[in-house]
């Protein structure tokens, strides 16, 4: 471990970890206060009023409404400070900033498969640059797992059939634990790895040294072709028998029941594995299901491809309305799917 060892606190290496620790220390303080107070008073009473004579019958003491109110209201107020502070930190942990670099994570009994938008794949290791906001888009192929980085004070379950997200900004270079924190079967305790936070330049080097791999969007485009999506949605997603996919990510889609829905990751995933569930207005239920034919990783790649389609579309309006997925600041733009599209 490269960070200095502070007693009883794990390395603190993200913008969030200090905030969590501060809250934690507050809670520890309150706990020590109440524990000492109660055990102190207890000890004092127990000694002072110990039984001195087997026949003594102390005088009954009536209750006191004042005291009761006091020791209901004060703990309640203290508890509310914990609640408010906790909720505030939670919001920061849970709401990804809009300009984060996306990284895809797929959990699988018992490993973590990670893919960067620039194509680099890793297993049980995650390389990230220090000082940049990273957003993980995560799912699992089988059971529930949980992506846990103690040094960053974050964790989130990955749930089959759903996408969950985590975000962080590493502050200190180093190698940190990565754990699976949701029990997932035989080798749960082996589903561990490390997060390597690198200085941005080192990180770029690392990316460069691993750039031979296809970016997920490119891989997604290939899937798109081999699975036959092209036949209905057109080679560049311009549409045909099926609706156009260009620029759809993040926009509102009108369904045949008149509702409209935000075309986010979950919606697009559902449109592929269970197309009948929500139909785009004006189209029949002709799209076959691809459940079982594509793995979660491939789904993420197709997703990346569909997302990438909007970068090149000339409809900035659509993008502005969406939770912007900014182009990755990584240098490997040569591998950008748009280029491959042309």
């Amino acid at each position: 471990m490269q960070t200095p060892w502070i007693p009883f606190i794990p390395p603190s290496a993200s913008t969030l970890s200090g905030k969590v620790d501060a809250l934690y220390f507050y809670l520890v303080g309150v706990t020590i206060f109440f524990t000492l107070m109660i055990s102190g008073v207890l000890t004092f009473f127990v000694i002072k009023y110990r039984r001195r004579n087997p026949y003594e019958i102390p005088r009954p003491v009536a209750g006191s409404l004042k005291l009761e109110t006091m020791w209901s209201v004060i703990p309640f107020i203290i508890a509310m400070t914990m609640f408010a502070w906790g909720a505030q930190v939670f919001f920061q942990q849970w709401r990804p900033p809009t300009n984060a670099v996306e990284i895809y994570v797929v959990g699988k009994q018992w490993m973590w498969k990670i893919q960067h938008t620039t194509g680099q794949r890793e297993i049980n290791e995650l390389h990230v640059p220090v000082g940049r906001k990273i957003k993980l888009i995560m799912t699992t192929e089988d059971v529930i797992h949980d992506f846990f980085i103690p040094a960053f004070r974050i964790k989130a379950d990955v749930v089959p059939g759903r996408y969950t997200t985590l975000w962080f900004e590493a502050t200190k270079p180093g190698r940190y634990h990565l754990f699976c924190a949701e029990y997932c079967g035989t080798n749960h305790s082996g589903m561990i790895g490390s997060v390597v936070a690198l200085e941005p330049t080192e990180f770029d080097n690392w990316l460069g040294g691993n750039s031979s791999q296809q970016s997920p969007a490119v891989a997604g485009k290939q899937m798109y072709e081999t699975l036959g999506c092209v036949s209905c949605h057109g080679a560049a997603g311009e549409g045909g028998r099926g609706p156009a996919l260009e620029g759809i990510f993040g926009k509102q889609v009108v369904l045949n029941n008149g509702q409209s829905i935000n075309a986010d990751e979950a919606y697009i995933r559902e449109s592929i594995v269970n197309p009948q569930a929500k139909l785009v207005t004006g189209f029949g239920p002709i799209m076959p299901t691809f459940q079982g034919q594509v793995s979660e990783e491939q789904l993420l790649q197709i997703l990346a491809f569909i997302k990438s389609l909007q970068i090149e579309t000339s409809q900035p309006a659509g993008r502005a309305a969406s939770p912007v997925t900014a182009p990755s600041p990584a240098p490997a733009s040569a591998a950008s799917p748009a280029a491959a599209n042309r």
Partner: protein
Amino acid sequence: MEEFIPPLPSRINYINAEYGLKSWLLTRDHKRIALLYLGSITFFFFIGGVYAMLIRLELLTPQGDLLQSTTYNKVFTQHGIIMVFFFLIPSIPATLGNFLVPMMIGAKDLAFPRINLLSWYIYMLGGGVTIYALLAGGVDTGWTFYTPFSTTFSNSYVVATGLGIFINGFSSILTGLNFIVTIHTMRAPGMTWFRLPLFIWAHYATSLVMILGTPVIAITILLLAFERLAHIGIFDPAVGGDPVLFQHLFWFYSHPAVYIMILPSMGVVSELIANFSRKNIFGYSFVAFSSLAIAVFGFLVWGHHLFVSSQSLYAGMIFSFLSFAVAVPSAIKVFNWTATLYKGSISFDTPMLYALGFIGLFTIGGMTGLFLATLGVNVHVTDTYFIVAHFHYIMVGGAIFGYLGGLHYWWPKISGRMYPDGWGRFSALLIFAGFNLTFFPQFVAGYLGMPRRYHAYPPEFQVFNVLSTAGASILAVGYLIPAVYLVWSMRYGKVAPGNPWHLPGLEWRTQSPPPTENFDYTPVVTWEAYEFAPPEEMEVVGKYHDQTAEKV
């Protein structure tokens, strides 16, 4: 002080009223059924304890070298299942509660004695099925049975174990039902609601949770079993279901269930604190109503187990807020217990040591519950050893301390014999020390990031695990001592008088052990709860009151 009680000829009590195995297995006497339960839950506690020791031994070293990972997973799962469903949930209600609820309210029995016996058989059947599942190959899902692991991926005996828990649930429901009806309809003349001992209030609240929560876990487990067998599912995402729905349904019961475990213990502690300081409880009605408040609010907070489960952020906030609200009634209790001691006449008998231990450890356990309810901190510590420490502080340091305290306190009534007090105090202290050594280091390991349910772990956590295992060994010895001397005392202990502690409760105003119908005449209550008086004034309200149980 026995001079106050004129020795009377020894006479028949519930133990020697009838002989033979059949008279026990077909008994409808709530006191005998309580003893049947006492035997069975002790058995399950020791099984669960052996599993606990296996966990601790495995975790002594960071490599998973003692057990294979599959075995380890089964061990902690079975530890959790047995301790929760077959030990702690029935522990106080089915033993002390069964024995004392009718006696404390001046009834001859529970309202439905046959259903009471039935509930024991159901418990044994559920336990039997579960033991079968363990012997046949065990189960490795964690006691929480999260889907889709439990429905699709685990290849262990999930259905059989689920069936055992399902069956066992009915025993809990029937016990709760019996208590509610008994407390409503069978109170002796003069025993108004606000003269009820707090033990009764706690059991009333517990029973509410039992009847309102248990059916939901029953249906959930049943659906789970079918889904596993038939590959269908409302919980399995592969066929369109939502695994988080399972978690909602599971915790709808299992969070309130933690109050099934702690409320009776709180009831015992209220008795102990009041009686061993010879004081009326401070703020009786606050303590009584806080039990009800815990039972009701306890149903509103289950989502605090789902903060990182992909549950909505807003639901998380609601549940967090409500979790803090539910802490207030617990706080009220702690403060009232403390205040009760003020100007009391405090003795240090074994039960009182357990009660004092309870207050301290429950405070720590409860306060760390607040850490978990704090959203921002929960994200970091959930599913780590911090949680393991939290709930052992409450369930072992809290609930079991209450249980042991109560068991010692009423032992003279139950068995008609005194336990050796010196040994009692010694083992109480030993358990206290061993307990803290076992579980305190886990808080630290948890905040440092050691995940729970890990068969092997990074070496930097070893020091905490070594401490913990050392503590658990002390704890094991600490538990063995009472088991030995209590059994010993049944035969060789000093014969207990009817009211060895000189207390006003109805259960003390009859002989020890009590006769089959508890009192020879229906008592009429004319005093308030915890109204202490000189021993000669706290007269017996059953007709006979003898000092000596017949020696067999």
